[in-house]
Protein backbone atom coordinates (compact mmCIF):
# COMPACT_ATOMS: atom_id res chain seq x y z
CA UNK A 1 0.00 0.00 0.00
CA UNK A 2 2.75 2.36 1.06
CA UNK A 3 4.79 1.23 -1.90
CA UNK A 4 1.93 2.03 -4.26
CA UNK A 5 1.46 5.45 -2.76
CA UNK A 6 5.14 6.30 -3.05
CA UNK A 7 5.27 5.08 -6.63
CA UNK A 8 2.18 7.13 -7.44
CA UNK A 9 3.87 10.19 -5.94
CA UNK A 10 6.88 9.88 -8.19
CA UNK A 11 4.81 9.88 -11.39
CA UNK A 12 3.95 13.60 -11.27
CA UNK A 13 7.64 14.26 -10.64
CA UNK A 14 8.56 12.37 -13.79
CA UNK A 15 5.93 14.33 -15.73
CA UNK A 16 7.30 17.67 -14.53
CA UNK A 17 10.80 16.52 -15.51
CA UNK A 18 9.56 15.50 -18.95
CA UNK A 19 7.90 18.90 -19.50
CA UNK A 20 11.11 20.57 -18.40
CA UNK A 21 13.27 18.50 -20.74
CA UNK A 22 10.87 18.99 -23.65
CA UNK A 23 10.62 22.74 -23.04
CA UNK A 24 14.40 23.01 -22.84
CA UNK A 25 14.88 21.38 -26.20
CA UNK A 26 12.20 23.44 -27.90
CA UNK A 27 13.62 26.63 -26.40
CA UNK A 28 16.62 26.10 -28.66
CA UNK A 29 16.58 28.43 -31.65
CA UNK A 30 15.56 26.19 -34.51
CA UNK A 31 14.43 23.54 -32.05
CA UNK A 32 15.55 19.98 -32.66
CA UNK A 33 16.65 20.86 -36.19
CA UNK A 34 19.15 23.50 -35.06
CA UNK A 35 22.06 21.35 -36.19
CA UNK A 36 20.74 21.40 -39.79
CA UNK A 37 20.04 25.13 -39.73
CA UNK A 38 23.72 25.73 -39.01
CA UNK A 39 24.79 23.53 -41.89
CA UNK A 40 24.94 25.53 -45.14
CA UNK A 41 24.83 22.26 -47.09
CA UNK A 42 21.25 21.58 -46.04
CA UNK A 43 18.70 23.41 -48.19
CA UNK A 44 15.78 25.31 -46.59
CA UNK A 45 13.24 23.15 -48.44
CA UNK A 46 14.87 20.02 -46.97
CA UNK A 47 14.56 21.47 -43.50
CA UNK A 48 10.91 22.24 -44.20
CA UNK A 49 10.39 18.66 -45.34
CA UNK A 50 12.10 17.32 -42.22
CA UNK A 51 10.02 19.60 -40.06
CA UNK A 52 6.84 18.15 -41.56
CA UNK A 53 8.14 14.60 -41.43
CA UNK A 54 9.05 14.88 -37.78
CA UNK A 55 5.76 16.56 -36.91
CA UNK A 56 7.47 19.76 -35.85
CA UNK A 57 4.78 21.83 -37.60
CA UNK A 58 2.20 20.58 -35.10
CA UNK A 59 1.24 22.53 -31.96
CA UNK A 60 3.71 22.06 -29.10
CA UNK A 61 1.18 20.28 -26.88
CA UNK A 62 0.60 17.61 -29.52
CA UNK A 63 4.33 17.29 -30.12
CA UNK A 64 4.86 16.83 -26.41
CA UNK A 65 2.28 14.08 -26.07
CA UNK A 66 3.67 12.31 -29.13
CA UNK A 67 7.23 12.58 -27.90
CA UNK A 68 6.35 11.38 -24.43
CA UNK A 69 4.31 8.40 -25.57
CA UNK A 70 7.05 7.42 -27.99
CA UNK A 71 9.61 7.80 -25.24
CA UNK A 72 7.69 5.61 -22.83
CA UNK A 73 7.46 2.86 -25.41
CA UNK A 74 11.23 2.92 -25.90
CA UNK A 75 11.28 4.95 -29.11
CA UNK A 76 13.86 7.58 -28.22
CA UNK A 77 14.50 8.82 -31.73
CA UNK A 78 17.71 8.71 -33.72
CA UNK A 79 21.09 10.14 -32.94
CA UNK A 80 21.95 13.12 -35.12
CA UNK A 81 25.62 12.17 -35.20
CA UNK A 82 25.41 8.63 -36.56
CA UNK A 83 21.73 8.06 -37.30
CA UNK A 84 21.43 5.03 -35.05
CA UNK A 85 18.61 4.66 -32.51
CA UNK A 86 19.34 6.62 -29.34
CA UNK A 87 18.16 3.76 -27.14
CA UNK A 88 20.67 1.44 -28.76
CA UNK A 89 23.53 3.90 -28.36
CA UNK A 90 22.72 4.42 -24.70
CA UNK A 91 22.32 0.73 -24.01
CA UNK A 92 25.79 0.08 -25.44
CA UNK A 93 27.31 2.65 -23.12
CA UNK A 94 25.42 1.72 -19.97
CA UNK A 95 27.62 -1.22 -18.82
CA UNK A 96 30.78 0.91 -18.69
CA UNK A 97 29.02 3.53 -16.58
CA UNK A 98 27.50 0.95 -14.25
CA UNK A 99 30.93 -0.63 -13.81
CA UNK A 100 32.48 2.73 -12.99
CA UNK A 101 29.64 3.73 -10.66
CA UNK A 102 29.81 0.41 -8.85
CA UNK A 103 33.57 0.64 -8.42
CA UNK A 104 33.37 4.21 -7.17
CA UNK A 105 30.62 3.25 -4.73
CA UNK A 106 32.93 0.60 -3.28
CA UNK A 107 35.87 3.02 -3.10
CA UNK A 108 33.73 5.73 -1.51
CA UNK A 109 32.30 3.42 1.15
CA UNK A 110 35.70 1.86 1.89
CA UNK A 111 36.99 5.35 2.62
CA UNK A 112 33.92 6.90 4.23
CA UNK A 113 32.83 4.19 6.66
CA UNK A 114 36.11 3.72 8.59
CA UNK A 115 36.78 7.48 8.54
CA UNK A 116 33.29 8.25 9.78
CA UNK A 117 33.46 5.68 12.59
CA UNK A 118 36.92 6.70 13.78
CA UNK A 119 36.07 10.41 13.66
CA UNK A 120 32.96 9.84 15.74
CA UNK A 121 34.69 7.67 18.34
CA UNK A 122 37.68 10.02 18.56
CA UNK A 123 35.59 13.16 18.32
CA UNK A 124 37.61 16.36 18.57
CA UNK A 125 40.93 14.51 18.54
CA UNK A 126 43.45 14.90 15.78
CA UNK A 127 42.05 12.00 13.69
CA UNK A 128 38.68 13.71 13.68
CA UNK A 129 40.10 17.09 12.81
CA UNK A 130 42.35 15.78 10.03
CA UNK A 131 39.51 13.80 8.50
CA UNK A 132 37.32 16.89 8.81
CA UNK A 133 39.83 18.91 6.82
CA UNK A 134 40.20 16.15 4.24
CA UNK A 135 36.44 15.91 3.89
CA UNK A 136 36.12 19.65 3.45
CA UNK A 137 38.81 19.57 0.76
CA UNK A 138 37.04 16.61 -0.85
CA UNK A 139 33.74 18.44 -1.28
CA UNK A 140 35.57 21.56 -2.45
CA UNK A 141 37.59 19.83 -5.18
CA UNK A 142 36.86 20.68 -8.77
CA UNK A 143 36.35 17.06 -9.88
CA UNK A 144 37.79 17.49 -13.38
CA UNK A 145 40.90 19.16 -11.99
CA UNK A 146 41.40 16.40 -9.43
CA UNK A 147 41.18 13.95 -12.34
CA UNK A 148 43.71 15.90 -14.41
CA UNK A 149 46.15 16.08 -11.49
CA UNK A 150 45.92 12.34 -10.76
CA UNK A 151 46.36 11.63 -14.46
CA UNK A 152 49.38 13.90 -14.57
CA UNK A 153 51.09 12.47 -11.50
CA UNK A 154 50.18 8.79 -11.20
CA UNK A 155 49.66 7.97 -14.86
CA UNK A 156 51.80 10.26 -17.01
CA UNK A 157 54.45 11.15 -14.45
CA UNK A 158 55.02 7.90 -12.58
CA UNK A 159 53.49 5.52 -15.09
CA UNK A 160 51.86 3.43 -12.38
CA UNK A 161 48.41 3.36 -13.93
CA UNK A 162 46.92 3.83 -17.40
CA UNK A 163 45.89 7.46 -17.96
CA UNK A 164 42.62 6.81 -19.76
CA UNK A 165 40.30 4.33 -21.43
CA UNK A 166 38.60 1.21 -20.20
CA UNK A 167 41.07 -1.44 -21.25
CA UNK A 168 44.34 -1.79 -23.13
CA UNK A 169 44.25 -2.92 -26.74
CA UNK A 170 46.23 -6.10 -26.21
CA UNK A 171 46.08 -7.07 -22.60
CA UNK A 172 42.47 -7.02 -21.50
CA UNK A 173 42.57 -9.40 -18.60
CA UNK A 174 40.98 -8.81 -15.23
CA UNK A 175 44.02 -7.08 -13.77
CA UNK A 176 44.10 -4.69 -16.69
CA UNK A 177 40.41 -3.89 -16.22
CA UNK A 178 40.99 -3.07 -12.57
CA UNK A 179 44.06 -0.95 -13.36
CA UNK A 180 42.01 1.14 -15.76
CA UNK A 181 39.25 1.50 -13.21
CA UNK A 182 41.32 2.75 -10.28
CA UNK A 183 41.84 6.39 -11.27
CA UNK A 184 38.35 7.21 -12.58
CA UNK A 185 36.69 5.35 -9.71
CA UNK A 186 38.80 7.26 -7.19
CA UNK A 187 37.99 10.61 -8.78
CA UNK A 188 34.28 9.85 -8.94
CA UNK A 189 34.33 8.59 -5.35
CA UNK A 190 36.16 11.57 -3.84
CA UNK A 191 33.24 13.94 -3.33
CA UNK A 192 30.98 11.17 -2.04
CA UNK A 193 33.58 9.71 0.31
CA UNK A 194 34.15 13.16 1.80
CA UNK A 195 30.48 13.95 2.30
CA UNK A 196 29.48 10.49 3.50
CA UNK A 197 32.27 10.23 6.08
CA UNK A 198 31.10 13.42 7.76
CA UNK A 199 27.51 12.32 7.52
CA UNK A 200 28.25 8.96 9.13
CA UNK A 201 30.26 10.74 11.81
CA UNK A 202 27.40 12.98 12.87
CA UNK A 203 24.92 10.16 12.62
CA UNK A 204 27.20 7.97 14.81
CA UNK A 205 27.59 10.81 17.31
CA UNK A 206 23.82 11.05 17.56
CA UNK A 207 23.52 7.34 18.32
CA UNK A 208 26.52 7.22 20.68
CA UNK A 209 24.94 9.85 22.94
CA UNK A 210 21.82 7.76 23.50
CA UNK A 211 21.00 5.86 26.66
CA UNK A 212 21.09 2.34 25.27
CA UNK A 213 24.75 2.87 24.42
CA UNK A 214 25.43 3.90 27.99
CA UNK A 215 23.46 0.87 29.15
CA UNK A 216 25.47 -1.45 26.93
CA UNK A 217 28.71 0.05 28.22
CA UNK A 218 27.39 -0.35 31.75
CA UNK A 219 26.69 -4.02 31.15
CA UNK A 220 30.35 -4.39 30.27
CA UNK A 221 29.95 -4.84 26.52
CA UNK A 222 33.41 -4.23 25.01
CA UNK A 223 33.84 -0.79 23.43
CA UNK A 224 34.49 -2.31 20.02
CA UNK A 225 31.22 -4.20 20.09
CA UNK A 226 29.32 -1.16 21.31
CA UNK A 227 30.62 0.91 18.43
CA UNK A 228 30.29 -1.67 15.69
CA UNK A 229 27.26 -3.65 16.76
CA UNK A 230 25.11 -1.13 18.58
CA UNK A 231 26.05 2.26 17.20
CA UNK A 232 27.01 1.48 13.62
CA UNK A 233 23.93 -0.63 13.02
CA UNK A 234 21.73 2.29 14.01
CA UNK A 235 23.76 4.89 12.16
CA UNK A 236 23.94 2.84 8.96
CA UNK A 237 20.31 3.40 8.03
CA UNK A 238 20.59 7.13 7.39
CA UNK A 239 23.87 6.57 5.54
CA UNK A 240 22.25 4.08 3.16
CA UNK A 241 19.54 6.66 2.50
CA UNK A 242 22.09 9.35 1.69
CA UNK A 243 24.02 7.01 -0.59
CA UNK A 244 20.92 6.47 -2.70
CA UNK A 245 19.86 10.12 -2.52
CA UNK A 246 23.20 11.21 -3.99
CA UNK A 247 22.44 9.49 -7.29
CA UNK A 248 21.97 12.80 -9.11
CA UNK A 249 25.37 13.96 -7.94
CA UNK A 250 26.85 10.70 -9.18
CA UNK A 251 25.50 11.34 -12.68
CA UNK A 252 27.05 14.82 -12.81
CA UNK A 253 30.29 13.33 -11.53
CA UNK A 254 30.22 10.58 -14.14
CA UNK A 255 29.87 13.12 -16.94
CA UNK A 256 33.02 14.88 -15.77
CA UNK A 257 35.03 11.78 -14.85
CA UNK A 258 34.27 9.85 -18.01
CA UNK A 259 35.21 12.82 -20.11
CA UNK A 260 38.56 13.34 -18.35
CA UNK A 261 39.49 9.64 -18.45
CA UNK A 262 37.96 8.84 -21.86
CA UNK A 263 35.83 6.20 -20.15
CA UNK A 264 33.40 4.96 -22.81
CA UNK A 265 30.20 5.25 -20.78
CA UNK A 266 27.00 7.29 -20.81
CA UNK A 267 28.74 10.36 -19.42
CA UNK A 268 31.20 10.40 -22.29
CA UNK A 269 28.32 9.85 -24.73
CA UNK A 270 26.66 12.89 -23.18
CA UNK A 271 29.71 15.14 -23.64
CA UNK A 272 30.10 13.93 -27.23
CA UNK A 273 26.44 14.79 -27.77
CA UNK A 274 27.03 18.25 -26.27
CA UNK A 275 29.85 18.92 -28.73
CA UNK A 276 27.74 17.69 -31.69
CA UNK A 277 24.50 19.31 -30.50
CA UNK A 278 22.94 15.84 -30.71
CA UNK A 279 19.61 16.83 -29.13
CA UNK A 280 17.85 13.43 -29.19
CA UNK A 281 20.75 11.91 -27.21
CA UNK A 282 20.83 14.86 -24.80
CA UNK A 283 17.08 14.60 -24.15
CA UNK A 284 17.18 10.86 -23.63
CA UNK A 285 20.15 11.20 -21.29
CA UNK A 286 18.36 13.75 -19.11
CA UNK A 287 15.14 11.73 -19.08
CA UNK A 288 16.81 8.42 -18.26
CA UNK A 289 19.12 9.77 -15.58
CA UNK A 290 16.35 11.81 -13.94
CA UNK A 291 14.05 8.78 -13.93
CA UNK A 292 16.87 6.74 -12.39
CA UNK A 293 17.40 9.40 -9.72
CA UNK A 294 13.69 9.47 -8.88
CA UNK A 295 13.66 5.68 -8.73
CA UNK A 296 16.73 5.54 -6.48
CA UNK A 297 15.27 8.20 -4.19
CA UNK A 298 12.18 6.05 -3.94
CA UNK A 299 14.33 3.02 -3.07
CA UNK A 300 16.16 5.15 -0.47
CA UNK A 301 12.88 6.13 1.11
CA UNK A 302 11.58 2.58 1.22
CA UNK A 303 14.86 1.21 2.58
CA UNK A 304 14.94 3.88 5.24
CA UNK A 305 11.49 2.76 6.38
CA UNK A 306 12.47 -0.90 6.26
CA UNK A 307 15.65 -0.32 8.27
CA UNK A 308 14.07 1.94 10.84
CA UNK A 309 10.57 0.92 11.97
CA UNK A 310 10.23 4.20 13.88
CA UNK A 311 9.80 6.14 10.62
CA UNK A 312 6.07 6.51 10.17
Amino acid at each position, binding site marked *: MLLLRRVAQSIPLLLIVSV*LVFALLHAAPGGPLAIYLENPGVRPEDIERLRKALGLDQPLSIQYVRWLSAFITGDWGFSLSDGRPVAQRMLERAPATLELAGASLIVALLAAVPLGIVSAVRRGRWVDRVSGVIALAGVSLPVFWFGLILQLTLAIGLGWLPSSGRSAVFDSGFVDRIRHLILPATVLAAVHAAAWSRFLRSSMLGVLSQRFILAAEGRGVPKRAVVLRHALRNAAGPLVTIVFMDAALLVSGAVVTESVFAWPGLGALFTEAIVRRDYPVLMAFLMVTSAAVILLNLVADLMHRALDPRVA
Partner: protein
Amino acid sequence: MSMDPGAQRATFSVNAALVVAGLLVLLALAAPLIAPFAPDAIDLAGRRAAPSSVHWFGTDDLGRDLLSRVLYGARVSLAIGILAAALTVALGAGVGMVAGAAGRWIDALLMRIADAILAVPRLPLLMIASVIVRPGVPVLILLVAAVSWMETARVVRAEVRSLVTRGFVEAAHAMGVKPLMSLWRHILPNVIPTLVVATTLAVGRSILLESALSFFGVGVQPPTASWGNMLYQAQSTMATEPWLALFPGAAILISVLTVNSLGERLSISRIGVRAS
Protein backbone atom coordinates in the same frame (compact mmCIF):
# COMPACT_ATOMS: atom_id res chain seq x y z
CA MET B 1 29.80 35.48 27.63
CA SER B 2 32.09 32.49 27.96
CA MET B 3 32.35 30.05 25.10
CA ASP B 4 33.29 26.42 25.10
CA PRO B 5 36.56 25.55 23.32
CA GLY B 6 34.73 24.12 20.30
CA ALA B 7 32.75 27.30 19.71
CA GLN B 8 35.88 29.37 20.29
CA ARG B 9 37.75 27.38 17.68
CA ALA B 10 34.82 27.76 15.31
CA THR B 11 34.82 31.53 15.78
CA PHE B 12 38.55 31.63 15.12
CA SER B 13 38.10 29.60 11.92
CA VAL B 14 35.27 31.88 10.82
CA ASN B 15 37.56 34.86 11.21
CA ALA B 16 40.42 33.10 9.44
CA ALA B 17 38.17 32.07 6.54
CA LEU B 18 36.77 35.60 6.32
CA VAL B 19 40.31 37.01 6.09
CA VAL B 20 41.24 34.59 3.28
CA ALA B 21 37.97 35.26 1.44
CA GLY B 22 38.52 39.00 1.76
CA LEU B 23 42.05 38.60 0.46
CA LEU B 24 40.84 36.66 -2.58
CA VAL B 25 38.25 39.32 -3.42
CA LEU B 26 40.87 42.02 -2.90
CA LEU B 27 43.32 40.26 -5.26
CA ALA B 28 40.56 39.99 -7.86
CA LEU B 29 39.58 43.64 -7.52
CA ALA B 30 43.19 44.79 -7.61
CA ALA B 31 44.11 42.62 -10.61
CA PRO B 32 44.76 45.61 -12.94
CA LEU B 33 47.10 47.11 -10.32
CA ILE B 34 49.06 44.04 -9.29
CA ALA B 35 49.08 41.82 -12.38
CA PRO B 36 52.64 41.90 -13.77
CA PHE B 37 51.40 41.75 -17.38
CA ALA B 38 48.23 42.42 -19.33
CA PRO B 39 46.16 39.19 -19.29
CA ASP B 40 45.94 39.09 -23.08
CA ALA B 41 49.44 40.33 -23.91
CA ILE B 42 50.77 37.85 -26.43
CA ASP B 43 54.48 37.09 -26.47
CA LEU B 44 55.20 34.52 -29.15
CA ALA B 45 58.91 34.41 -28.29
CA GLY B 46 58.12 33.42 -24.70
CA ARG B 47 55.51 30.74 -25.32
CA ARG B 48 54.99 27.78 -23.02
CA ALA B 49 57.61 29.02 -20.56
CA ALA B 50 57.86 27.19 -17.25
CA PRO B 51 57.37 29.20 -14.04
CA SER B 52 60.30 31.57 -13.49
CA SER B 53 61.15 34.75 -11.61
CA VAL B 54 59.63 36.80 -14.45
CA HIS B 55 56.57 34.65 -15.02
CA TRP B 56 55.79 33.17 -11.61
CA PHE B 57 53.12 30.83 -12.96
CA GLY B 58 54.71 30.38 -16.41
CA THR B 59 53.15 31.30 -19.75
CA ASP B 60 50.59 29.63 -22.02
CA ASP B 61 50.69 28.63 -25.69
CA LEU B 62 50.41 32.26 -26.78
CA GLY B 63 53.03 33.44 -24.32
CA ARG B 64 50.41 35.08 -22.06
CA ASP B 65 51.46 35.43 -18.42
CA LEU B 66 49.55 32.82 -16.40
CA LEU B 67 49.70 34.71 -13.09
CA SER B 68 48.05 37.71 -14.71
CA ARG B 69 45.42 35.49 -16.28
CA VAL B 70 44.69 33.76 -12.99
CA LEU B 71 44.28 37.17 -11.32
CA TYR B 72 41.97 38.43 -14.05
CA GLY B 73 40.20 35.09 -14.14
CA ALA B 74 39.45 35.57 -10.45
CA ARG B 75 37.34 38.59 -11.32
CA VAL B 76 35.15 36.50 -13.61
CA SER B 77 35.04 33.30 -11.56
CA LEU B 78 34.48 34.99 -8.20
CA ALA B 79 31.93 37.43 -9.61
CA ILE B 80 29.95 34.55 -11.07
CA GLY B 81 30.26 32.61 -7.81
CA ILE B 82 29.14 35.47 -5.59
CA LEU B 83 26.37 36.88 -7.80
CA ALA B 84 24.97 33.46 -8.70
CA ALA B 85 24.94 32.54 -5.00
CA ALA B 86 23.12 35.75 -4.08
CA LEU B 87 20.55 35.12 -6.77
CA THR B 88 20.24 31.43 -5.82
CA VAL B 89 19.51 32.27 -2.21
CA ALA B 90 17.15 35.14 -3.08
CA LEU B 91 15.18 32.82 -5.37
CA GLY B 92 15.24 29.96 -2.88
CA ALA B 93 14.21 32.21 0.00
CA GLY B 94 11.37 33.69 -2.03
CA VAL B 95 10.01 30.33 -3.14
CA GLY B 96 10.52 28.80 0.30
CA MET B 97 8.77 31.64 2.11
CA VAL B 98 5.83 31.67 -0.27
CA ALA B 99 5.48 27.88 -0.08
CA GLY B 100 5.83 27.77 3.69
CA ALA B 101 3.46 30.64 4.36
CA ALA B 102 0.83 29.90 1.72
CA GLY B 103 0.59 26.17 2.38
CA ARG B 104 -1.95 23.98 0.58
CA TRP B 105 -1.73 23.63 -3.19
CA ILE B 106 0.72 26.48 -3.73
CA ASP B 107 3.12 24.78 -1.33
CA ALA B 108 2.55 21.38 -2.92
CA LEU B 109 3.07 22.72 -6.44
CA LEU B 110 6.23 24.70 -5.64
CA MET B 111 7.78 21.83 -3.74
CA ARG B 112 7.01 19.30 -6.48
CA ILE B 113 8.70 21.61 -8.99
CA ALA B 114 11.69 21.86 -6.67
CA ASP B 115 11.77 18.06 -6.29
CA ALA B 116 11.58 17.61 -10.05
CA ILE B 117 14.46 19.97 -10.78
CA LEU B 118 16.48 18.33 -8.00
CA ALA B 119 16.00 14.98 -9.71
CA VAL B 120 17.59 16.25 -12.93
CA PRO B 121 21.39 15.95 -12.67
CA ARG B 122 22.56 19.53 -12.28
CA LEU B 123 25.68 19.70 -14.43
CA PRO B 124 24.21 17.97 -17.54
CA LEU B 125 21.10 20.16 -17.27
CA LEU B 126 23.23 23.28 -17.10
CA MET B 127 25.43 22.11 -19.98
CA ILE B 128 22.39 21.59 -22.22
CA ALA B 129 20.96 24.97 -21.24
CA SER B 130 24.31 26.59 -22.04
CA VAL B 131 24.53 24.90 -25.41
CA ILE B 132 21.08 26.21 -26.27
CA VAL B 133 21.35 29.72 -24.85
CA ARG B 134 25.08 30.35 -25.45
CA PRO B 135 25.17 32.66 -22.48
CA GLY B 136 27.36 35.64 -21.74
CA VAL B 137 28.45 36.07 -18.15
CA PRO B 138 25.19 37.71 -16.89
CA VAL B 139 22.99 34.98 -18.39
CA LEU B 140 25.37 32.33 -17.08
CA ILE B 141 24.76 33.70 -13.58
CA LEU B 142 21.00 33.41 -14.16
CA LEU B 143 21.33 29.83 -15.39
CA VAL B 144 23.44 28.73 -12.43
CA ALA B 145 20.89 30.21 -10.03
CA ALA B 146 18.01 28.62 -11.95
CA VAL B 147 19.34 25.12 -11.27
CA SER B 148 20.51 25.80 -7.70
CA TRP B 149 17.70 27.46 -5.71
CA MET B 150 15.88 24.28 -4.65
CA GLU B 151 17.85 23.28 -1.57
CA THR B 152 17.52 26.76 -0.06
CA ALA B 153 13.81 26.76 -0.85
CA ARG B 154 13.36 23.47 1.00
CA VAL B 155 15.22 24.59 4.10
CA VAL B 156 13.51 27.99 4.20
CA ARG B 157 10.09 26.43 3.69
CA ALA B 158 10.64 24.06 6.61
CA GLU B 159 11.71 26.93 8.85
CA VAL B 160 8.82 29.14 7.82
CA ARG B 161 6.36 26.35 8.48
CA SER B 162 7.63 25.93 12.00
CA LEU B 163 7.81 29.71 12.54
CA VAL B 164 4.20 30.42 11.55
CA THR B 165 2.97 28.26 14.41
CA ARG B 166 5.08 30.13 16.96
CA GLY B 167 3.43 32.43 19.48
CA PHE B 168 4.82 35.75 18.27
CA VAL B 169 3.69 35.14 14.71
CA GLU B 170 0.25 34.02 15.81
CA ALA B 171 0.03 37.03 18.10
CA ALA B 172 0.87 39.34 15.22
CA HIS B 173 -1.77 37.61 13.14
CA ALA B 174 -4.33 38.03 15.92
CA MET B 175 -3.48 41.71 16.16
CA GLY B 176 -4.40 42.07 12.51
CA VAL B 177 -0.94 42.24 10.94
CA LYS B 178 -1.31 41.32 7.29
CA PRO B 179 0.34 37.98 6.34
CA LEU B 180 2.74 39.58 3.84
CA MET B 181 3.82 42.14 6.41
CA SER B 182 4.28 39.41 8.97
CA LEU B 183 6.35 37.40 6.50
CA TRP B 184 8.61 40.39 6.02
CA ARG B 185 8.79 41.66 9.59
CA HIS B 186 8.58 38.52 11.73
CA ILE B 187 9.58 35.55 9.66
CA LEU B 188 12.34 36.81 7.37
CA PRO B 189 14.58 38.07 10.20
CA ASN B 190 14.43 34.63 11.79
CA VAL B 191 15.42 32.93 8.55
CA ILE B 192 18.42 35.17 7.89
CA PRO B 193 21.02 33.05 9.77
CA THR B 194 20.03 30.10 7.58
CA LEU B 195 20.30 32.28 4.50
CA VAL B 196 23.81 33.41 5.44
CA VAL B 197 25.01 29.82 5.66
CA ALA B 198 23.16 28.89 2.46
CA THR B 199 24.78 31.81 0.62
CA THR B 200 28.34 30.91 1.59
CA LEU B 201 27.82 27.30 0.53
CA ALA B 202 26.16 28.45 -2.69
CA VAL B 203 29.20 30.59 -3.56
CA GLY B 204 31.39 27.49 -3.51
CA ARG B 205 28.99 25.46 -5.56
CA SER B 206 28.48 28.22 -8.12
CA ILE B 207 32.23 28.58 -8.60
CA LEU B 208 32.48 24.82 -9.14
CA LEU B 209 29.55 24.79 -11.59
CA GLU B 210 30.96 27.68 -13.62
CA SER B 211 34.39 26.07 -13.74
CA ALA B 212 32.94 22.73 -14.86
CA LEU B 213 30.85 24.41 -17.56
CA SER B 214 33.81 26.41 -18.82
CA PHE B 215 35.99 23.32 -18.63
CA PHE B 216 33.65 21.71 -21.16
CA GLY B 217 33.84 24.82 -23.32
CA VAL B 218 30.20 25.81 -22.83
CA GLY B 219 30.64 28.37 -20.04
CA VAL B 220 32.69 31.57 -20.13
CA GLN B 221 34.05 31.97 -23.65
CA PRO B 222 37.62 32.99 -24.54
CA PRO B 223 39.24 35.49 -24.80
CA THR B 224 37.69 36.28 -21.39
CA ALA B 225 39.71 34.27 -18.89
CA SER B 226 37.94 32.28 -16.21
CA TRP B 227 39.60 29.59 -14.14
CA GLY B 228 37.43 26.96 -15.80
CA ASN B 229 38.19 27.88 -19.39
CA MET B 230 41.90 28.17 -18.58
CA LEU B 231 41.75 24.53 -17.55
CA TYR B 232 39.84 23.74 -20.75
CA GLN B 233 42.72 25.18 -22.74
CA ALA B 234 45.32 23.52 -20.51
CA GLN B 235 43.92 20.03 -20.92
CA SER B 236 45.48 19.22 -24.28
CA THR B 237 49.03 20.25 -23.38
CA MET B 238 48.92 19.13 -19.79
CA ALA B 239 51.68 16.55 -20.09
CA THR B 240 54.26 19.07 -21.32
CA GLU B 241 53.01 22.23 -19.58
CA PRO B 242 51.51 21.02 -16.31
CA TRP B 243 51.65 24.47 -14.71
CA LEU B 244 48.82 25.57 -17.02
CA ALA B 245 46.53 23.08 -15.29
CA LEU B 246 47.98 23.38 -11.82
CA PHE B 247 47.48 27.05 -10.98
CA PRO B 248 43.94 27.78 -12.17
CA GLY B 249 42.72 24.57 -10.50
CA ALA B 250 44.48 25.45 -7.27
CA ALA B 251 42.80 28.85 -7.39
CA ILE B 252 39.40 27.17 -7.68
CA LEU B 253 40.19 24.76 -4.85
CA ILE B 254 41.40 27.52 -2.52
CA SER B 255 38.36 29.71 -3.16
CA VAL B 256 35.81 26.93 -2.76
CA LEU B 257 37.61 25.53 0.28
CA THR B 258 37.54 28.97 1.88
CA VAL B 259 33.82 29.59 1.44
CA ASN B 260 32.92 25.99 2.33
CA SER B 261 34.89 26.11 5.57
CA LEU B 262 33.31 29.48 6.29
CA GLY B 263 29.86 27.98 5.73
CA GLU B 264 30.62 24.92 7.83
CA ARG B 265 32.04 26.95 10.70
CA LEU B 266 29.23 29.50 10.61
CA SER B 267 26.68 26.76 10.93
CA ILE B 268 28.51 25.14 13.86
CA SER B 269 29.28 28.33 15.75
CA ARG B 270 25.66 29.42 15.79
CA ILE B 271 23.71 27.53 18.48
CA GLY B 272 24.79 24.21 17.04
CA VAL B 273 22.16 24.31 14.31
CA ARG B 274 23.46 22.80 11.10
CA ALA B 275 21.93 23.78 7.80
CA SER B 276 21.75 20.80 5.51
